[in-house]
């Protein structure tokens, strides 16, 4: 049963403690998510492969089997057929001496590699779900967001609504596709394929509350070790999407990884948008009336 009309403004924007409950579930399991700690990602792409294998994703992306020239990234971006995407960033970055018998304090010119496995954020306030006109996109009992392929009519509204550019329409199939956080595996008590395959535990799966605690601790460790650029992305329930179900530990600004710096769920402004449209409808009605009021016959 859905609970209609309960705290509607809070359902559009802001922190939300019980996201599955807000969607109408009772007695549901804990909200689960991904914590992707990019500092230990080795760029092996096992997550991409495991995801493709488990979910039977076709390799119809135009970018697949092409060399992009973007370091080791030949996947390019998340899309209808790529639900995990490992980004590779090569940066010129001076590093402090690490040799105990070195010739004093200083810095060496060096290249650092940032590798990060991106995925659908399973937002607390998911724009794709909000705007879906058919009800094909739904919130699951785990607090995740999935597309029901038997309902989707391929209107592509979700594609433009997603502030992360995650969901996309498969051209030969006509429907929208994205990460399901392996809903079938979750139902069977298993962790998602990408997390299972990750050899370094860069991708961690579990109850979101626990992951957030783990992430805070890891961040504190990194800061203590002098890694000043370390930051969490998507972990804050006060952010523009009410916090993400899949969040990240990054070493540089989000846009460097191809992530939007401060995404906001578009539906936040929806009430205001309708007011302006209502006013414009009034302008139309008044305009027609004015045209006729003084017209000769």
């Amino acid at each position, binding site marked *: 049963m859905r609970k209609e009309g309960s705290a509607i403004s809070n359902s559009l924007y802001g922190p939300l403690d019980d996201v599955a409950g807000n969607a109408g579930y009772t007695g549901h399991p804990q909200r689960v998510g991904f914590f992707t700690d990019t500092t230990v990602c080795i760029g092996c792409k096992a997550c991409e492969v495991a995801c493709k294998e488990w979910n039977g994703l076709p390799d119809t992306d135009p970018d697949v089997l092409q060399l992009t020239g973007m370091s080791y990234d030949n996947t390019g971006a998340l899309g209808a057929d790529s639900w995990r995407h490992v980004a590779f960033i090569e940066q010129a970055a001076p590093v402090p001496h690490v040799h105990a018998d070195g010739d004093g304090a200083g810095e060496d010119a060096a290249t650092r590699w940032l590798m990060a496995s991106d995925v659908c954020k399973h937002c607390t306030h998911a724009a794709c779900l909000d705007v879906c006109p*058919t*009800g094909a996109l739904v919130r699951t009992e785990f607090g995740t967001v999935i597309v029901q392929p038997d309902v989707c*009519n391929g209107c592509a509204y979700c594609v433009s609504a997603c502030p992360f550019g995650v969901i996309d329409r498969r051209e030969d199939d006509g429907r929208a596709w994205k990460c399901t956080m392996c809903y079938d595996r979750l139902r069977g008590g298993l962790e998602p394929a990408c997390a299972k395959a990750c050899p370094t535990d860069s991708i961690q799966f579990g109850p979101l509350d626990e992951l957030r605690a783990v992430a805070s601790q890891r961040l504190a460790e990194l800061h203590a070790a*002098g890694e000043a650029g370390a930051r969490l992305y998507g972990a804050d329930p006060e952010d523009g999407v009410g916090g993400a179900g899949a969040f990240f530990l990054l070493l540089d600004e989000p*846009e460097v990884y191809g992530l939007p710096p*401060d995404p906001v769920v578009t539906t936040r402004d929806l009430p205001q*948008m309708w007011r302006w449209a209502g006013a414009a409808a009034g302008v139309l009605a008044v305009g027609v009336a004015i045209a006729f009021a003084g017209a000769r016959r």
Partner: protein
Amino acid sequence: MTEQLQVPSAEFRSYYGRPILKVTHWKEPNLPAYLVLGELSGALAMVGAVAHATGRRSLARTARLGSAVAAYGGGALLAAELGRPERFLNMLRVAKPTSPMSMGSWVLAAHSGLISAAAATEVTGLLPGLGAAAGAASAMTGPALATYPGVLLANTAVPAWHSSYRELPLLFAGGGMTAAGAAGLAASALRADRADFDAARRLAIVGALVESAAGYGLEVKPGPEGEVYRSGEGARMLTAARYLTLGGGIAALAARRSRAAALVSAALLAGGGYCAKAAVLRAGKESAADPRYVVESQLRDAGSG
């Protein structure tokens, strides 16, 4: 702590210049034509209701028939934009207030039904009470059908659309008036029927002013969101729209005596209306394809908030 104070980078940073957002699959001519037909149907329904109320029987019939045809044409274009057109009716599977497309689908369905009933009565003379009631109700659904796409486009992550939630519905309201005015001018000129010529002319002029003002509002929008309306593909279309629409308005002013001027005005207004919608689509695509628009607008908003 070996924390290094880094000077913030002056130039925006990105992942190999790749888009952050996905670029919409909506395309020309389907989307702009759908918007034009929706406006036209909505405004003509309003015209039909006013004509009916003021005893302009012939105009009421023509306007309602035209409105019905435009509504069905719009529905067909909408279905053609779907990845799975055969599932068009899934649009009416749920009613979702958070989805402008769901609300719009219901408005389109209601409007099509109402205006069809009103038009059927106009043609057959049957059930006049019911037809009149449906026609009056279509004066409510009509303006909603014309302006809801402003919310449809704005309620996305596309910078050029989301930031324009004030201007877009007004652009479409003005477009409804110019489309209906153009239809009236053309019909009057072709039929050599002067009866309602003056009302069509006035509607075209008011619409041209509103539409141009909304277009100007897009163009002067500050920041990266306005840039795509000032330069590039979208801007070129928007400029074309302005010349066509204002030209159409001026021709309507001159159309008092000339049938040729009326036809020219109708053609210019129709072209201007289409170009304005195409401009919005192109500007939206540009602002989604270039990560700079996303990064700069978000960093600005985060900085000010």
